[in-house]
């Protein structure tokens, strides 16, 4: 598209970076180097000496209690806050090399549902960044329709509605469409589902994962909700009092918490929560020879073990048939789940 940050054509030659060649091959979308933010008059820094590399196309969730500095860390990426010390790089270019407005137009930004402009229609809201980028009108119109389709709001019905005429979940879909409008490579999401009821939140999370599999954006997502973090993240950054205490895969955060704080925060003793991070296909046994379906409930291979456990207990069936596109590929029993818990989780 030519607008995404760090596009080879636009970045090449702009800033010869001495480390560029060494770093070739390591694709890092966002890199924090010893970033500290001290607000004037605050007794302690909001963010203290944070170093973090976010890989290209990965979904990273910043998790921590309120006041831990997670939102501050996020807002330094689009320069709503400037670090007191340290530097932030996107695609190996220091973000201060661009003007703040140019940088921000290349980064999608989603906040809690209040973020839509109430005096603009859905279409106008989505068109904000394309307009700032000076796209021609027809291209903007096409893009608006395309994005509304993407977030499953039929354009004919929703284009000319105002935010107040949408439900909270719909508003957040529009917020997501708006953030994607300029086709940014990086998406910043600040507790986007915080003010939404549990059922809608779950469906928005699914939607976001579906979109992410398709679009492969680099997402930095702030939340204080542990289950949301476990569900969405490729990697979780756990923060406490301005510092990063752990940066790891969700299962590792749960099974090998860095310290007592992380242990308590994520509820590392909660076996059922841990099962929710293991997929059925890693625990199932291959089909026994001469297997014939005998009324076993079926489950998908990419479902999680928590669901499988629940299904086993609810139906009282001795085993589940793991079914992939109508074809049984394995079986799963309580023993399999127990064995997996022992091996995978307790290590």
């Amino acid at each position: 598209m030519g607008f995404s940050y760090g596009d080879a054509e636009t970045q090449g030659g702009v800033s010869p970076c001495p480390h560029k060649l060494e770093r070739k091959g390591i694709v890092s979308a966002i890199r924090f180097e010893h970033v500290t933010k001290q607000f004037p008059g605050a007794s302690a820094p909001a963010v203290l000496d944070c170093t973090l590399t976010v890989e290209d196309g990965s979904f990273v969730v910043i998790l921590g209690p309120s006041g831990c500095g997670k939102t501050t860390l996020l807002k330094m990426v689009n320069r709503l806050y400037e670090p007191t010390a340290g530097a932030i790089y996107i695609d190996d270019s220091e973000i201060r090399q661009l003007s703040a407005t140019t940088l921000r137009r290349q980064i999608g930004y989603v906040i809690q549902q209040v973020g839509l402009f109430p005096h603009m229609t859905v279409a106008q809201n989505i068109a904000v960044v394309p307009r700032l980028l000076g796209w021609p009108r027809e291209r903007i119109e096409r893009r608006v329709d395309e994005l509304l389709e993407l977030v499953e709001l039929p354009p004919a019905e929703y284009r000319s509605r105002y935010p107040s005429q949408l439900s909270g979940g719909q508003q957040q879909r529009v917020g997501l469409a708006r953030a994607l409008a300029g086709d940014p490579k990086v998406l910043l999401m600040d507790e986007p589902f915080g003010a939404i009821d549990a059922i809608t939140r779950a469906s928005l999370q699914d939607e976001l994962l579906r979109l992410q599999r398709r679009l492969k954006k680099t997402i930095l997502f702030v939340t204080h909700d542990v289950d949301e973090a476990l569900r969405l993240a490729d990697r979780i950054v756990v923060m406490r009092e301005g510092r990063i205490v752990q940066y790891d895969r969700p299962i590792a955060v749960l099974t090998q918490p860095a310290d007592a704080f992380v242990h308590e925060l994520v509820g590392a003793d909660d076996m059922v929560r841990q099962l929710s991070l293991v997929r059925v296909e890693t625990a199932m046994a291959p089909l026994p020879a001469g297997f014939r379906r005998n009324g076993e409930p079926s489950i998908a291979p990419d479902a999680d073990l928590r669901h499988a456990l629940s299904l086993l207990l609810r139906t009282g069936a001795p085993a589940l048939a793991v079914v992939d596109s109508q074809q049984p590929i394995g079986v799963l029993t309580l023993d399999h789940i127990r064995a997996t818990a022992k091996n995978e989780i307790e290590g």
Partner: protein
Amino acid sequence: MGETLLRAYEYATDHQEEFLRALGEHLLLVGLALGIATLICVPLGIVTSRSRAVAATVINIFNSLRVVPSLAILFLAIPYFGLSLTSAWIALTILALPPILINTDTAFRTINPAIKEVAYGMGMTGQQRLWRVEAPLALPVIIAGIRTATVEVIASATLAAFIGSGGLGIYVTRGFALYDNAILLVGAVPVALLALLAEMVMSRLQRAVQPPA
């Protein structure tokens, strides 16, 4: 009462030329005062909305001006501007300043900070944020301020007649001097109708620019 009204109507038609001139003068005074007050107060209100200290100072000064009776301001202006339209519209402008200033200040101050931050976060410049986001959101409240000012100024413009600056107030002073209520009504009724009309038009305008809730 009905008879007095009828006589007032006859008086107005008998003095049609004078009546129309007085109406014109009245509207000119009102329009001038409101126009100047709006030009001063909307930009000033945007400035004050960004600083609590500036807002407190400026709004207090303007409010204390309002406490001085308009008639007094009128007489105070005479030594400098004479018995002229200028004296009249200075007094009227001062009257119109506080509601417009206070509403503009409030309108910009009460815009959801998250909305303002997201405007920057999406890459708007300060100007773009002001014109594309803040101004449209503030507009209904600003118009409400102008509406309050309009009604006040239409009614108070009758005072201009006291210093010989014309307007529909001439009939009020004349009726009072001649102890003739009919002549007084020739001034009073059109002023009341004008105020009502302005109120209606402005509230319709206010609704038209209000984002759907």
